[in-house]
């Protein structure tokens, strides 16, 4: 496909959509689907048909709109009106109200900080385009970055833009993306690979799922650009088998892109060929670790191996391999479209751009949010999240999942960036953000994460395999009121050992939830040990 052809598709699609007077968007991402938004869409379509409005009103299934807990969500595009908790019975009222006053009982207020404080880069198309139609993506400037890169930029120029953007890996560790691309581009080897890590395994995180369900082409485009930049012609998306909808939409997207000549051989009549295949994960958190993920794509047990050599040098089948996560790739097309400098203007000095978070737990507004780096945690929890419900007290916010930590009230005014989060004992992580109130016991939370790490440990190296099991037993002992001060000392000793001697990131970070809760909530541990009580009332004492 040439640039002109792409332009034509975009124009005709925009024209076709412009012919409709009204555009009703129904969220068809997993969250709203689980509250039966598909039935709502059917009812809306039937209602439009009943009123003979098919030529005037377009009912479109779109991706995630954000406030998942308020689903099923419906929006009227031309007015920006958003409806919450819509049932099929509401269809008639919504269709009748078009061009008039909105249906007030269903309105989800959009003049709140929840919508106003967000900055959408990764999610710019989410909730607006139909993820199952490539034309809709193209109409939203989709694939223009890829063709721009292929036809008017050298691979080095593409990488230059990524370097300038200051984009860092959104999988959690925050490694500079430009540097990674440069390393793979420079690596010796005839065959190279691009892998998209979509094995979103953190409990409490659903950013990547949402991006894949809402805007799958964006990830494909990002991968193709990466393939061009580093010299790879084959890409793999390693996606969780637990995300059937994302898998289905990715398959559709790959097929459509191939048919349009946006993936495949000699894209846009250039020398560049790029194919993308899916590989399904099978329920192993450790496969989020690069070397374990590679082993899994090779059809093996997903056990990591020591690095170096890094995958950039020796990855899939021993060839240089670029691995980035979903959100990282999703950032690439707008960076190429608007330039690295544009991206670098968002965020902070060292953490550029935006970050998508899955906001959940004891907070009024749960759902998917995208915020500029540097925003404070307080703004996220109180302004965007609407604070803690039921008049309860905020206690901590957990970021980074089982590799992260719990951040207490005193650090809420800290800006969200990679370095600050590490400084307070947590990490950025992939974007899970769980708010806890005083009914959550910090020992219990640490125990929960340790159980996760224990069952997800691959078992290859001894500190992680046995250390996490010991730590879990000790935390259980503490939470049941059976522990002594010696047990606490042993727990801390194990944290140090496992953190410093484990083979891969899973083990290295497994002690983090314990260390961070000990750092800020040591008195809660002591209450369990010396007074044998759980201040939050969450633990069952067995003594």
């Amino acid at each position, binding site marked *: 496909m040439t640039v002109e052809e792409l332009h034509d598709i975009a124009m005709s699609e925009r024209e076709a959509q412009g012919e409709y007077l009204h555009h009703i968007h129904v969220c068809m991402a997993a969250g709203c689907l689980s509250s039966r938004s598909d039935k709502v869409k059917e009812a809306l379509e039937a209602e439009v048909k009943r009123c003979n409005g098919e030529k005037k009103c377009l009912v479109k299934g779109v991706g995630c709109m954000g406030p998942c807990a308020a689903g099923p969500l419906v929006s009227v595009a031309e007015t920006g009106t958003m409806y919450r908790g819509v049932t099929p019975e509401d269809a008639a009222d919504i269709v009748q109200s078009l061009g008039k006053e909105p249906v007030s009982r269903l309105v989800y207020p959009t003049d709140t900080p929840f919508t106003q404080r967000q900055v959408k880069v990764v999610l710019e198309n989410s909730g607006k385009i139909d993820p199952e139609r490539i034309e809709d993506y193209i109409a939203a400037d989709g694939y223009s970055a890829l063709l721009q890169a292929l036809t008017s930029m050298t691979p080095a120029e593409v990488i230059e833009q990524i370097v300038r953007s200051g984009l860092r890996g959104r999988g959690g560790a925050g490694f500079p993306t430009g540097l990674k691309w440069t390393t793979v581009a420079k690596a010796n080897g005839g065959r190279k690979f691009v892998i998209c890590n979509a094995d979103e395994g953190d409990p409490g995180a659903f950013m990547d799922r949402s991006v894949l369900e809402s805007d799958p082409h964006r990830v494909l485009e990002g991968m193709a650009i990466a393939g061009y930049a580093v010299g790879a012609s084959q890409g793999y998306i390693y996606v969780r088998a637990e995300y059937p909808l994302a898998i289905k939409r990715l398959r559709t997207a790959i097929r459509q892109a191939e048919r349009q000549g946006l993936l495949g051989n000699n894209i846009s009549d250039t020398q560049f060929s790029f194919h993308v295949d899916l590989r399904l994960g099978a329920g*192993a958190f450790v496969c989020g670790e690069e070397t374990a993920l590679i082993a899994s794509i090779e059809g093996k*047990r997903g056990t990591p*191996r*020591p690095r*170096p050599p890094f995958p950039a040098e020796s990855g899939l089948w021993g060839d240089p391999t670029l691995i980035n996560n979903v959100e990282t790739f999703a950032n690439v097309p707008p960076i190429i479209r608007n330039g690295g400098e544009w991206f670098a203007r968002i965020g902070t000095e060292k953490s550029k751009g935006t970050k998508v978070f899955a906001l959940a737990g004891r907070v009024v507004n749960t759902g998917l949010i995208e915020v500029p780096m540097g925003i404070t945690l307080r703004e996220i929890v109180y302004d965007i999240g609407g604070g803690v419900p039921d008049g309860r007290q905020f206690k901590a916010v957990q970021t980074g999942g089982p590799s992260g930590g719990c951040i207490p009230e005193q650090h809420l005014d800290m800006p969200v960036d990679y370095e600050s989060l590490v400084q307070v004992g947590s990490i950025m992580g992939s974007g899970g953000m769980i708010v806890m109130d005083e009914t959550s016991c910090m020992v219990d939370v640490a125990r929960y994460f340790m159980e996760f790490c*224990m*069952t*997800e*440990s*691959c*078992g*290859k*190296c*001894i*500190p992680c*395999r*046995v*250390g*996490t*099991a*010991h730590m879990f*037993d000790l935390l259980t002992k503490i939470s049941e009121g059976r522990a002594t001060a010696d047990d606490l000392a*042993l727990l801390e*000793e*194990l944290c140090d*050992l496992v953190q*410093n*001697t*484990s*083979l891969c990131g899973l083990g*290295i970070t497994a002690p983090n939830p314990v260390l961070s809760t000990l750092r800020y909530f040591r008195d809660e541990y002591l209450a369990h040990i010396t007074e044998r009580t759980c201040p939050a009332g969450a633990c069952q004492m067995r003594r």
Partner: protein
Amino acid sequence: MRQSVRVKTLKIDDRDVGAREDQTLLEVCRENGIFIPALCHLDGLTPVGACRLCLVEVKGQRRLLPACVTRVEEGMEVNTATERLKKYRRQILELFFSERNHICSVCVSNGHCELQSLAQQLGVDHVHFPYRYPRLPVDASHDRFVIDHNRCILCTRCVRVCDEIEGAHTWDVMGRGINARVITDLNKPWGESESCTSCGKCVHVCPTGALVEKGRSVAEMAKRRQFLPYLTLMREGKQ
């Protein structure tokens, strides 16, 4: 035919040593008589960096590095026996002992066990982590050999020697984490294995009393390893 290999100089424990660029730290240390403990590593098998006993400190590296897979670099400064490393090594050995049921006094490998002798060498006189006492099977279905999972430390030497040297790949690891276990074929009794050639290599590379010959009594099972370097050398010669 050997391509020209460059030589690197580095400092290990304040000693200047020379090494070929394709050598690992562990190889160089052992050549120079510097003791580094290891349980998963065995010359002739692919290193896996799993037992973490060979971790060393490398100047400029934030993390400890496993000597068995870390290549030498020009000007590297390595410390192999700091107090911190010694502490971690003792703790790791204790983790091994606490994981399963290593009862040395009634083990056929008593006195010939790498885990036991390393513990003595590194000054482990008791295990201060709580023992886990899992219930694990002993498989004596094979004519000549026994696998006692109570003594297995999951070093995977058996898996590697069977795959890389014998070429049978009878052994592998099943499950994960604390529930991981070595298996033969589809987790069937060893004696029923369709792929096992009964060569006994797995038995002789096993560092503990997990894989032993039948008919041995306490302390009678000494392992013979000479075959491994021999076989590896013969293979190289063939190429």
